[in-house]
């Protein structure tokens, strides 16, 4: 692979459409990582990293494929951060990235089906696998002595996959799920779902959804009607909104999200504040990590050609090596330049396993006095 002064990274998220409210901070985080690298002047031969955004629309495979086609074959990007929703991500992967040998790291596509997709080692994701989270969630609830819960999930591959894995684990551990009710994101009203959930009852309501989407709507309706007052939140429900919009209303609720007892998540939050975006919004950390991993792998392979650096992604993400946290990209680049090894931990405690998935540690938290308080790490 040749060296050049410019590295172009594509960012393909749904800037319009159903998750348009999530994507701006995600893109901002990825761009922040790129700026960090550019400013360090250490990548390859002091290359500048230029982000190029494109709109995946989240739902329109045709438009998303077109946009990716443009990024890869016209703009000539060297790596792709994205896509976001599993549907368009699959389409981009098989129709554009794979044929063109382009590497992509998705921060948010969690569909189990993507694990088995043919990818030639070109596809990675920094969002953790659902299977493991279901088990972790079960452990947490069981330790609290919660034996009976109601479950609602957002009706997409993320929600459905997580709900399935949680249900399996929880019932295997002797728990009861009183009802499993899907909810659609972006709808106007969730009374029906809450009505059914309330009728079924349970000690807690588990919401396998997004805090910036229908998850909040369901929670709001459940609280307002007095159906539930404590909840359990998987990763998609973590965000500053919990504190800002709900606060002490949901005291006693618990949740977990990928993370180690590292300063990673807090650093992202602070960095986000400095750059004018919400660092706790869903998939922001994952986006930062996705961008960082691509650039670190380039450095490790000393090439910006995906064919060269695709093999290095796993190396930089996993042990052995020096642990790297957000904001330390310069340090990492230097180590790699000097021929050392790194273990990128990043904001989400990235650990890639076979199939390019992230297997992670989890941070367990509780809402106390309206604040998210870390309880322990698993």
């Amino acid at each position, binding site marked *: 692979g040749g060296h050049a002064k410019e590295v172009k990274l594509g960012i393909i998220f749904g800037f319009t459409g159903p998750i348009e*409210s999530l994507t*701006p901070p995600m893109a901002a985080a990825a761009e922040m990582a790129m700026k960090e690298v550019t400013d360090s002047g250490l990548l390859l031969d002091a290359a500048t990293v230029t982000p190029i955004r494109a709109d995946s629309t989240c739902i329109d495979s045709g438009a998303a494929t077109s946009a990716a086609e443009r990024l890869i074959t016209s703009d000539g990007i060297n790596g792709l951060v994205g896509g976001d929703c599993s549907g368009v991500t699959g389409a981009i992967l098989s129709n554009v990235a794979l044929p063109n040998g382009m590497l992509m790291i998705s921060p948010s596509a969690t569909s189990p089906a993507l694990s088995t997709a043919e990818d030639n080692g070109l596809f990675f994701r920094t969002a953790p696998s659902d299977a493991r989270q279901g088990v972790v969630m079960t452990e947490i609830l069981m330790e609290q002595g919660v034996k009976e819960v109601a479950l609602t999930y957002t009706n997409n591959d993320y929600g459905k996959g997580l709900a399935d894995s949680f249900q399996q684990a929880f019932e295997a551990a002797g728990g009861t799920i009183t009802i499993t009710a*899907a909810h659609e994101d972006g709808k106007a009203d969730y*009374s*029906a779902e809450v009505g059914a959930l309330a*009728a079924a009852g349970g000690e807690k309501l588990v919401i396998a959804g997004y805090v910036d989407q229908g998850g909040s709507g369901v929670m709001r*309706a459940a609280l307002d*009607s*007095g159906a539930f007052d404590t909840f359990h939140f998987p990763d998609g429900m973590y965000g500053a909104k919990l504190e800002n*919009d709900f606060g002490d209303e949901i005291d006693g609720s618990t949740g977990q999200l990928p993370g180690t007892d590292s300063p990673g998540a807090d650093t992202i939050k602070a960095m986000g504040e400095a750059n004018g975006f919400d660092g706790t919004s869903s998939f922001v950390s994952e986006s930062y990590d996705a961008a960082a991993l691509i650039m670190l792998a380039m450095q490790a392979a000393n090439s910006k050609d995906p064919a060269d650096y695709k093999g290095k992604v796993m190396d930089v993400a996993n042990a052995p090596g020096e642990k790297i946290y957000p904001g330390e990209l310069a340090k990492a680049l230097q180590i790699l330049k000097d021929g050392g090894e790194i273990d990128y931990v990043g904001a989400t405690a990235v650990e890639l396993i076979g199939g390019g998935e992230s297997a992670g540690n989890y941070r367990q938290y509780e809402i106390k006095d309206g604040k998210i308080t870390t309880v322990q790490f698993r």
Partner: protein
Amino acid sequence: MVDFLNALVALSNFVLIPAIAYGSQLALGALGVTLIYGILRFSNFAHGDTMAFGAMITVLITWWMQSVGINLGPLPTALLALPFGILGCMALVLFTDRVVYKFYREQKAKPVILVIVSMGVMFIMNGLVRFIIGPGDQKFADGERFLISAREFKQLTGLREGLAIKTTQCLTVVVAIICVALLFWFLNKTRTGKSMRAYSDNEDLALLSGINPERVVMYTWLIVATLATVAGVLYGLDKTFKPFIYFQLLLPIFASAIVGGLGNPLGAIAGGFVIAFSEVTVTYAWKKVLKYLLPENLEPSSLVQLLSTDYKFAVSFVILLIVLLFKPTGLFKGKSV
């Protein structure tokens, strides 16, 4: 007896009250749609985004008021900001009418062309709102959240079931009733209202009666802007303000207007409730209610749910279809072009 009360309260809390509030929200939106259909004779796809625009202005003014400490005590400050939102929305729709719709009116374009044109307007308003306030959730509700919360109700009555009534729910219902009553009075009793009905009935003859069509159109838009802003703000107060959801609201709003009978204000109200109730009741799990009503040995073990909530939209559309099959132009004999 207590069991019966508990059952009643549970049903009210999870079915009746939410459905009434949601129904009123839909009805307010549907009123705007139905008015445009009735008088200007096209289905306005931009209505959801008009609601978002009006609500957005209100949100911005509310924030400003909150920042300088103006408030309404227990009521949401947004009510104070509402008139400004309405004015802003009026300005926007009148401007749109001048530069866009007027041309097609003069051309006597077919309704379907106007529908597609309104889609163009929708795209533009869509972008406009997002430019100004962004695509995310915005919080602007304040004041007392509950008239009575579930917990208070339980303490008060000693029942096992709670009943929560939100200020915003109450406001929505009251405002919806006032709006319909006013609209009815306006259309049926006032001179301007009658001239609007006359215009919608027979445009050419209205001309011959000395009615100025441009004025009728202007009044229509003014009322629509008012309704849209009120609907948008009340919805935002009760749930949340987020531009994309206003776009999504369009579908149930259209369904309401049509199932009630296009062009008929009473129909819009009835339609709103039909849609809301069918969404909420058909997927309701009756277990809780039955548990109170039936003797212990008959208590249901399953959820007693007709269909899972996955199908709530499907079900509301099935009900809509059934209504239309028996009443092909809606519950209240709507128009059809």
